[in-house]
């Protein structure tokens, strides 16, 4: 997968909407190189100080597009993602929740073929601390994000916010945060994110924030065995009842599959320090780094 850097040029799909506008301004202020936006009805206009294009493909005729961030309603995402892929974007951040799964699998297949990374759907995005952020994480809040050497992976944006705040509070800092999203099928899995952070300069240790449902943490555990960088993990949902979707479409335990204990066991076998409350994340990583 690709991690966003400060020299990457970014297009915001759906830039003119309320959330698109608010978060584009936040991204620009942080340092993200936003070079334009898309709204087919407002092509030719300027918004947030950058040109609005009719499509990402149109934008790519004039400028190189490395990444896009989509502020697009669920039923429009398939078309928007295909546009970004066709334009040659290598990183596509899909924030939207409730995208029909068949739409998602359709554009994921196209992205795969084009060598593009889909992050999400149903994610808060990514932060490369001190460089840029994509999506709607509070990257600019210095009580949450301080520069440091931790790579953070999370299926949940709100829980990641908490974890980063805990890291900051314990004197640690973050190099890169990858929000992968809370849906059962997502473009960048825990394993993909773990590999990317393992190979990312400046990351010395990993905070993995998982949750019940699916087998992504179990898959990642296999790779974790081969890593020399320390990993601490928190898995949310230990107190959740079986067979109930807990807010995230992906957070459901069916039988033993996807259960807290299955994930905890797999990770612990791989040498990962699985903590029982998020407050212990700082201490666990300090111990690992020592």
């Amino acid at each position, binding site marked *: 997968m690709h991690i966003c850097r400060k020299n990457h040029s970014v297009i915001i799909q759906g830039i003119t909407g309320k*959330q698109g506008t608010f978060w584009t301004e936040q991204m620009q202020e942080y340092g993200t190189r936003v070079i334009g936006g898309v709204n087919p009805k407002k092509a030719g206009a300027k918004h947030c100080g950058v040109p609005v294009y009719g499509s990402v493909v149109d934008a790519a005729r004039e400028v190189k597009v490395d990444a896009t961030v989509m502020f697009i309603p669920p039923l429009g995402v398939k078309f928007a993602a295909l546009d970004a892929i066709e334009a040659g974007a290598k990183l596509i951040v899909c924030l939207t929740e*409730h995208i029909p799964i068949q739409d998602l699998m359709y554009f*994921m297949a196209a992205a795969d073929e084009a060598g593009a990374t889909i992050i999400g759907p149903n994610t*808060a995005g990514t932060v490369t601390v001190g460089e840029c952020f994509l999506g709607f994480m509070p990257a600019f809040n210095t009580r949450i994000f301080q520069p440091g050497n931790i790579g953070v992976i999370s299926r949940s944006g709100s829980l990641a916010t*908490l974890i980063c705040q805990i890291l900051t*509070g314990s004197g640690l800092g973050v190099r890169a945060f990858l929000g992968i999203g809370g849906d*059962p099928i997502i473009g960048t899995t825990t394993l993909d994110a773990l590999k990317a952070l393992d190979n990312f300069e400046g990351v010395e240790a990993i905070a993995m924030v998982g949750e019940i449902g699916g*087998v992504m943490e179990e898959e990642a555990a296999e790779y974790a065995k081969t890593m020399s960088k320390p990993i601490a993990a928190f898995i949310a949902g230990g107190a959740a009842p079986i067979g109930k979707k807990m807010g995230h479409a992906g957070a459901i335990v069916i039988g033993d599959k996807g259960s807290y204990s299955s994930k905890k066991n797999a990770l612990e076998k791989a040498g990962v320090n699985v903590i029982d409350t998020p407050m212990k994340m700082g201490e666990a990583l300090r111990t690992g780094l020592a």
Partner: protein
Amino acid sequence: MNFEEFAAKPILANAGIRVPKSILCETPDEVARAAHDIGRCVVKAQVPVGKRGKAGGIQLANSVNDAKKHAQNIIGMKINGYVVDKVLVEAQSNIIREFYAAILNDPVTQTPLVMFSTEGGMDIEEVAASQPDKIKQAKIDVRHGLSLTQAFGLVEDLELSGANEEVAKVLIKLYSAYRKNDAELLEINPLVLNSSRSLEALDCKFVLDDSAVKRQPDLVAIGTPEKLTELEKRGEQHGIKYVELNGNVVVLANGAGLTMTTMDVVRHYGGEPANFCEIGGEAYTKGRAALELVLAKPGIKSLVVNFCGAFARCDVMMEGLLEAWVSLKPRIPVFFSIAGTGDEEAIIMLKKTLNLDPLPNIDEACKAAVKAAEGQ
């Protein structure tokens, strides 16, 4: 969203897959009339769960009287927590072979998977566990669909009493029904080869992708609504994700991950969460409705509010919550933990309105709420 057999089978029939003649009935008299029209039949309980046969909810009837007698037993019977209020009266088939066929969204390969097995009529999880080599499966690229070559290739080496090509054609039809109806799972078990050498779907399981309900309004009208408590229904009406639980510590947070974690930490300190309730994402403006909802549960002892703003701004969530607090004037002890987008504004509002400070972190807030619930 789940669909009962009577609602799922027309989806197959519309795609050109043969299903036996059937009539949906609600009383033994209706069943008798249906049996008179159909002849030798099967009386099948309609409930949105499996293992109906083992529970005695599926009975063969060779006469009208038989059918009526079975209906009297089945209607009103409880299967897996569901009371049977309707039955399907279906023509019997002369079964030669029973197969299994399904298309499903597979989170591991992240593609639709076509599955076929010669061991129909059994629970597919059991087949997968005991005879995994009896299950054939293949990934499908949604952009290209399932081709006849791919479908035929999947079953060509199997001994199917000469019905291989027909089976391949059924798989194609099944896939087109899966696509058209935004299925998460579309399963025929059993798919039978009958004595007139044609393939028939004797049962069908259909699960609609919950994210596709907006573009499938006709299906939603015939699907089985999820079994919800009164409070959960209220949550759904307000667009708030609320799951009722057995404890007495109310949990209100934003984001599924953070809300689950708040429950976990409550449990970690010896408390029991009363609910899962989150107002993250698009629901972050619903602080007011959410507070009213969580406080409506009887027997609650304390409340922990945990906001970590990202997209959901703490100040906006807090504003709604305080508005509701002032008008409801609840007397329950409340403990806050607040961080992220809009946190400073939210903390000021909390101090001004309730003269309260947030606790320094999630552990302290949950610990305090558990203690308060224990009456300390």
